[in-house]
């Protein structure tokens, strides 16, 4: 039996191997020139310094469905290009996610010998069950897509073939 005292430390981990050097993967994540071309196609701005701001901007299509201009915001906590980026991450998808506490997101890139990169996305979602559900892709295609699994899968396709599924 679960009790009310059970801790709700919720962490999700996503790992993918991408046939591209770490620097290219890093750019695809942090450079607005690239990060709006796969997944949900939301352009993301990173002020790449510790304490710098992060913003994901809603696409025109998302705005039509009532999404706010800034879909997600956050702050950069740790920065070691092209290996490690730790940031806060607060989504404003709807009332529930807006009301939840800020979450913490870690990007880790390890370049292997064959020039491919192991990308691990760790999302700490303590006290944010609504956000956790969205980023896990619980809504399915009808409920806004596949979350992180879909995003990193599309990022791999984008970097390896030059075209994304979401496009």
């Amino acid at each position, binding site marked *: 039996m679960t009790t009310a005292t059970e801790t709700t430390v919720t962490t999700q*981990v*996503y*790992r993918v191997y991408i046939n591209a050097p770490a620097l290219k993967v890093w750019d695809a994540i942090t450079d607005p020139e690239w990060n709006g071309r796969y997944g949900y196609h939301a352009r993301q701005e990173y002020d790449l310094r510790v304490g710098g701001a992060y913003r994901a901007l809603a696409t025109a299509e998302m705005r039509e469905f009532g999404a706010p201009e800034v879909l997600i915001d956050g702050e950069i906590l740790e920065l070691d290009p092209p290996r490690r980026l730790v940031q806060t991450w607060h989504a404003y998808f709807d009332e529930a996610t807006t009301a939840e506490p800020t979450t913490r997101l870690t990007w880790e890139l390890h370049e292997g010998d064959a020039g491919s990169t192991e990308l691990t996305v760790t999302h700490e979602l303590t006290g944010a069950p609504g956000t956790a559900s969205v980023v896990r892709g619980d809504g399915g295609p009808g409920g806004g897509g596949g979350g992180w*699994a879909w995003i990193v*899968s599309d990022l791999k*396709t984008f970097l390896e073939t030059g075209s994304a599924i979401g496009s």
Partner: protein
Amino acid sequence: MAGVADDDDRVFRALADPTRRHLLDRLFEREGRTLTELESELEMTRFGVMKHLRVLEDAGLVVTRRSGREKLHYLNPVPIRLIHDRWIDKYTERQVSALVDLKRRSEAELEDSA
């Protein structure tokens, strides 16, 4: 592309066992579990659970993280997503286009008979 085929083989083989699917279900319900926690829910020796977890880890379906003295196990759904994108979408697309063809043909027949 041999690497891709090998990766897929490992995922399919890992998923072909009911105990391993059960382990993934447990991790889906709650992420970040220790071996001891997982072991307590299965009628199996610690060694048996370790062996299954190793197969899942090799297939990329389980990722482990250290937290103090504990090793925590997380479900990584990305390999399943990649198989979905590569295989399932391909076949469901064909079904959809077959239906579209059928619709077009019956519409054309209707026009012919009109």
